[in-house]
Every structure is written in C-alpha cells, then in structure tokens.
C-alpha cells in the first residue's frame, strides 16, 4: 500500500514538474516568439473548442428532431475499444521512452524511494496525460451535452471514465515493456521504438486498407450508398472493460445515475487491483534483470561496407563529397534515420501497392500523351514528398550537437549548405528518377512524353529537396537527443505548404499548357516544354531563395 501511495505521489510530482517545464518553455520563457506561439496555440484550441461545441449542439438538435435508432451502449463501447488501440500504442512508446531514452530515470532511481514507486509514478504520469488529452479533445462536447440534456452527470462520469479506463492498459503495457527491456541491449531503445513504430504504422494502414469498407473497393471510384459503422460484437461484452465503460457512459447520457456509477465502480475496482499488482510486479521485474552493460559491437576491419564509400564522389569537391558520405553513413547506420528512407517505400506500398493493377490499367486507358505521362509521375510525387520532407528538412539538423565539428572548421556556411543539398538531393533524385522511369515504362505514354516527365521529376526532386534544405536551415535544431524532435514543427508545416505550392503550380502550368495547345493549335510538345521550363525555373528560383535565407540564418548561428 505504501508503494502504491508513493507511486501516486511520484506521479503527481513528475506531472507538476512537466507542467512547470511546459510553462517555463512557453509563456514564462521571456522569448517573444514562444509567447506569441503559445498565445496562437491557445487561440487555436479555443476556436477548435467553439467549433466542437457548435457541432455537438447541432448534432444534439438533429438527434432530438430525427430520432435515429442508435444503440448508445454499443456505440460508446466501440469507441472505448478503439481508444484502447490508441492507449496501447501511446503507452508502449511512452513506457519504452521512459525506460530507455529519458535521461532522468537514473536521477529518479537515485532518490530514496522504492523502485516500484518510481515505475508506478511513471504509470500515473501517463494516465494523467491521457486523461487531460481526452478532456482536451472532448471537454466542450461533454459540456454541451450536459447543458442540452440538463444532465450535469455527463461530464463527471465521462471524466471519471477517462481517468480510470487507461489504467489497466498503461499498467499492462508498462509490464510488457519491462519484460521487453530485459532482452533489449542497452542503447538500442531508439531502434526498437522505431521498428515498432514502423510495424504499427504499416499494420494499421494495411488493416485499414483491407478491412475499411470505404477503402475496400479498388480503383478511384468511391463507394456509393450509406456508410455503416464497423460491427464488432465483442466491443460491448459485459466481460470487457470497454463494455463496462460503454455501459457507464451510455447510462450517464440517459440520466441513469445508479447504472452509470455502478459500472464506473467496477472499472475503479479493476483499475485499483491492476495498479496495485502491476506496481509490485514492475519493481520486481526491474530489479530482476536490467541489462545495462553490453559490450560494444566490434566491426570488421576493411569490410566490404567500409570499402564502398572510401572513394570520392565524381564531380563533387572532397569537402562536399565528405559531407555526403558522412550523412549517408549516419542515415544508414542509425535505424531511426534509416526509417526516413524506408517510410516513403511503405507509403508507396500502402497507397499504390494493393490497387496497382487497376490503377495501371486506368492510366493506360488514357492512351499515349502528356496526361498519361503526368499521371505516371504520381508514385514519384509521393516519394518526393516523403523524401524531401524527411531528408531535406532534417539535413542541417542531422548534425545535432556535433555541429561544432563543422562550425569550428575553416569552411563557410554556404559550402556546408551545398554539401547538405547534395546529401539530401542525391538519394532523393536517384530514387525519384528510378520510380518515375519504372512508372513510365509500365504506362508507356510515348517516349518523348515519358522522357520529359522523367526529366521533370528529376528537376523537381533537385529543386524541392534544395528548398527543404533551406527551410531546414532556417528552422535548424541542434540540441535534440531524440531523433523525433530533430525537425521543427513550424519548419515541417512550412515545408509541406511550400511543397504543395511548388508542385501544385507546376501541375497547373502543365495543365494550362495543354489547354493552350488546344486553343492556339500550337504543337502540344511546344507548349508542354515551355511550361516545363517555366515550372523548373520557378522551382529553382524558390529553392535558391530558401538557400539564401537559410545561409543567412546559419551565419548568425552561435554555439554557446
């Protein structure tokens, strides 16, 4: 019992500390940019809340007028079951992060508290975070429901369910993570997390494609007719926590106090027992075997891998080649970085793989000409989007705390940026070109159209990736320890927006060129090539501008 209480105490302490850090980094930072960002963020949340309240109000009104036969218990149980999936994923990431990556674990364990209370504190912190996130997302809707139904019980019961429901998932996942950690060598946590993330992403996407009725039909045509909710009979089973939460929530909505509190109490009992047992077990598991010391991997001298990249890269100066090779090594040796190459392929498989034969025959049906050639660039476009964001935007920040190595060297930031452009654009350009060539070979739009389309793809790969490197330089982060925090969210947002603008403008220009050819009776190839030249020129100009701004920003960099 003492461990349990101490666990809750540690959890609340951790939560208070995190809250304080959040406030210090935002409104109390004293930095105008951050304060403005916080105010804008707050305003966006307020607008979203107002919107959510409005939608809920309209929904309640509609439900009162047109009484649809909805099984509220089943629907809410289904909602809680779906939420369990989110809980599993976020808890696993949080738990492994807490155990393997966060540097404060040693600090906490050095405190005069039982190990289980520290681990339980982590669980409590995760539950609090999930609880607050649930309230953040659904709070206004709950208040509107309470007001519209004259039922103040609704937000109270839902809040209790938000607090209790995650407990069993968080505890079970934490225990599983501890078991997992026993077999993960020290220092491999980031790789394991990344692999898990990729597996979950692929799994969810594939399941979605295979099971979601809206996506099951192949081809571009959308399914007509009413959409139905997925039917999972077990969701509201009385032996499942999702069924208990669903019953309690449905009873609260219906104004049945007694039933709502009864099912919430069942959930409370389960949560308390699981938390108590989990706390005890976690301490024992942790002490039973924590692999801290694993001998470092020894590499073979003069291996094939070593030999491949020893030479210079043709046409590149030794300095630029050195940056390209170094970045390639960093990206391919660190799994978290390697995923930046792997994810685009996963996207391609998920988006095009299952429907590829039908899509191909649809595009081939267009016959020879620029339209088919352009549509053939779609996979290359997806790849370019993914690679330019992941490699281009992160190119400068990839240096991290090692940035001093370059900053102390006798080279200008312009040369550094040039190296980064090559290091991001070379793999991007090669892969985009490869995918574009394969697509055009399969589609066969006529070789002049195919050739110009491939050239366009390569030119856009170069210019868009360079554009991203420039944006990445403006929003560079060198203080990250977790690769996920390498890219600044504002940089990602601006990068995505500019990608859409540049590629959208290019597509628009090419479309206009086809229309112009029809109106003026000019040869299509002439207007097409003119549009391509303008499009590529525009892309290069924007990329050059971004590099200039990025260089200016890096020149002002101080590594204090």
């Amino acid at each position, binding site marked *: 019992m003492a461990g349990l209480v101490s666990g809750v105490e540690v959890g609340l302490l951790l939560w208070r500390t995190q809250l304080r850090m959040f406030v210090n980094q935002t409104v109390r930072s004293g930095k105008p940019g951050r304060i403005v960002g916080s105010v804008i963020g707050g305003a966006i949340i307020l607008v979203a809340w107002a919107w959510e309240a409005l939608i809920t109000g309209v929904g309640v009104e509609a439900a009162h007028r047109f009484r649809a036969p909805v099984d509220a218990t089943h629907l809410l149980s289904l909602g809680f079951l779906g939420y369990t999936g989110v809980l599993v994923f976020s808890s696993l990431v949080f738990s492994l992060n807490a155990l393997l990556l966060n540097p404060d674990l040693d600090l906490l364990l050095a405190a005069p508290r039982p190990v289980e209370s520290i681990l339980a504190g982590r669980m409590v912190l995760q539950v609090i975070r999930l609880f607050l996130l649930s309230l953040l997302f659904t709070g206004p809707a709950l208040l509107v429901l309470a007001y519209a139904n004259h039922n103040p019980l609704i937000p109270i019961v839902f809040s209790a369910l938000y607090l209790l429901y995650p407990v069993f998932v968080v505890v079970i996942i934490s225990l599983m993570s501890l078991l997992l950690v026993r077999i993960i060598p020290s220092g491999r946590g980031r790789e394991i997390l990344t692999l898990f993330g990729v597996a979950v992403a692929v799994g969810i996407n594939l399941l979605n494609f295979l099971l979601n009725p809206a996506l099951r039909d192949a081809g571009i045509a959308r399914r007509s007719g009413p959409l139905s909710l997925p039917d999972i009979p077990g969701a509201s089973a009385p032996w499942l926590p999702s069924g208990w939460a669903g019953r309690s929530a449905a009873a609260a909505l219906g104004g049945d106090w007694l039933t709502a509190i009864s099912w919430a109490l069942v959930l409370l009992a389960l949560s308390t027992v699981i938390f108590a047992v989990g706390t005890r077990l976690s301490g024992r598991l942790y002490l039973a075997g924590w692999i801290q010391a694993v001998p470092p*991997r020894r*590499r073979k001298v003069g291996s094939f891998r070593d030999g491949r990249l020893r030479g210079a890269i043709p046409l590149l100066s030794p*300095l630029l080649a050195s940056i390209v090779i*170094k970045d390639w090594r960093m990206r391919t040796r660190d799994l978290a970085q390697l995923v930046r190459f792997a994810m685009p392929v996963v996207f391609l498989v998920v988006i095009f793989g299952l429907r590829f034969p039908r899509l191909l025959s649809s595009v081939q049906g267009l016959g020879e000409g620029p339209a088919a050639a352009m549509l053939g660039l779609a996979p290359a476009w997806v790849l370019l989007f993914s690679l330019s964001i992941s490699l281009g935007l992160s190119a400068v920040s990839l240096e991290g705390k090692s940035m001093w*190595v370059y*900053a102390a*060297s006798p*080279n200008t930031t312009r040369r550094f940026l040039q190296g980064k452009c090559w290091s991001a654009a070379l793999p991007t350009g090669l892969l985009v070109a490869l995918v574009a060539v394969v697509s055009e070979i399969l589609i066969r739009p006529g070789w002049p159209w195919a050739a110009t389309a491939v050239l366009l793809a390569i030119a856009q790969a170069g210019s868009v990736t360079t554009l991203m490197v420039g944006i990445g330089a403006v929003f560079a982060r060198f203080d990250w320890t977790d690769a996920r925090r390498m890219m600044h969210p504002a940089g990602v947002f601006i990068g995505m927006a500019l990608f859409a603008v540049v590629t959208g403008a290019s597509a628009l220009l090419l479309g206009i060129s086809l229309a112009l050819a029809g109106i003026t009776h000019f040869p299509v190839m002439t207007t097409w090539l003119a549009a391509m030249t303008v499009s590529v020129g525009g892309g290069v100009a924007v990329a050059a501008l971004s590099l200039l701004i990025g260089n200016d920003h890096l020149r002002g960099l101080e590594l204090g």
Partner: protein
Amino acid sequence: MLSTRLLTKRYGSLTAVEDLDLEVSAGELFGFLGPNGAGKTTTIKMLVGLLRPTSGAARVAGIDIMAEPEKAKARIGYVPDAAMLYDKLSAREFLEFSGDLYHVEPRLRDRRIGTLLKLFGLEPRGNDFLSGYSRGMRQKVSLAAALLHDPQVLFLDEPTVGLDPQSARQMKDILQDFCQEGKTVFFSTHILEIAERMCTRLAIINHGRLVAMGSLQELRHMVGQDGQSLEQIFLELTGSREEDVRAILRGLES
C-alpha cells in the same frame, strides 16, 4: 600567436566575459583557469569562432577571428569540453571526415590518421563506432581530430576530464611536444596540479574578468607570498579562500 583586446561577451544583462586582454606567444603552453561559470568556455568559444564577441577584438595566429574566420580556423585545432561526435561513425571515418573539413590532402590525411590512432592507442578500435567509446576515448579522438590538420594554435577546454592518469600523462607529453615545435596550446582546466606542472604561463579569470596573468612565479609575487602552491594562489585570487569554504560548511552543518 594569440591576442585579445577588450574582448567582451554579454547575454542580455549577463556579462560572461568582460574586457579581456590576453597575449600568448608562440611555443607557449598557456593555462586558462577559473572557477565554474567564470567565462573560460565562453572565451575559448569566442577565440575559435563559435561565438561572436559583443565587443572587442581577438587575433589568432595573426588573423582576426571575426574578420576572417575561415582563414583563422584553418590554423586552429579545437577540443571542446564534452566532445559530441558522430556516434554512428568509426573513429577512422570521423577523422577522415575531419581531415576533409580542414582540407587535408587525402593521402596525407590517411597517413596522419594512422599515426594519430597509433599515438593515442586507438588503432585496435579505430573501426568501431564512436557510440561504443568511453568518454576518455572520445576525448582522444577529439584531440586526434584537432591535431590532424597540423594547427598552429590548439584550444582545449578541460582536456583531461575523463582521462585515466596514463592518458593524461600521454596528453601532457603530446602537448609539450606540440609547443616545442613553436606552436601554441591554450587550455582551460580545473585540475590545478596539471596546470602547475605543464604551463609556461597562466591566466586566472573570475566573474568574466581577468584577475591575473603570468608565470607561476609572477603570480606568486602578485599575491605577495612566495612558495605558495597554485591552488592557494587560485583560491586567493578568486576570493574562495579555505576559511570561507569552511565557514560555509559550518553553516550547512548547523
């Protein structure tokens, strides 16, 4: 070889370094001492071009570091206090990269890498990733990288942290050899014993201001007590005398 004139660095209202005047000649092994937060690292970072001074001037190897940073950096070797290296590169690969950054001709670079790895006893682990290196080994790799392009001035920020006694001794020998070639070493340390034994001249900085500079003998004259150890001189000049420390400890106990 190295000079600063009224070198100042301010962070808002905080003055990290103020009106620093230094003069270090060729062949000197110059120790830069000061308590925690005195401004040692900030000074070194300004001298190697990682930070821009708020005011004042600094010349390294006869070149203005602010006006011609690239030219000056080509003559500088720098070892930071916590050398953040690329974990997924081997020591050999990191040194290759470093050589390319400093425009060292590839054949000369490879020859020097072999020599330096041997010199620092890193040859058997030269192809292992740096992520598996201890702090001391990383420090050695960092020093090897700083020496690779044959700099004229070597800046070291707490170079002996993390080194075992044998390695610390080895580093001392390497630095002394370096100075005998007419080159300059400028290093900060907390370990006064090392500074006392190694340095030809010393400077002591406190609260961002230079409080003393000269040979050990000159510093002794300055505090007016011959025969004092560097530790006693340091405590005297930085105002953290033994009695004060004892008084604070007594306060904690009561």
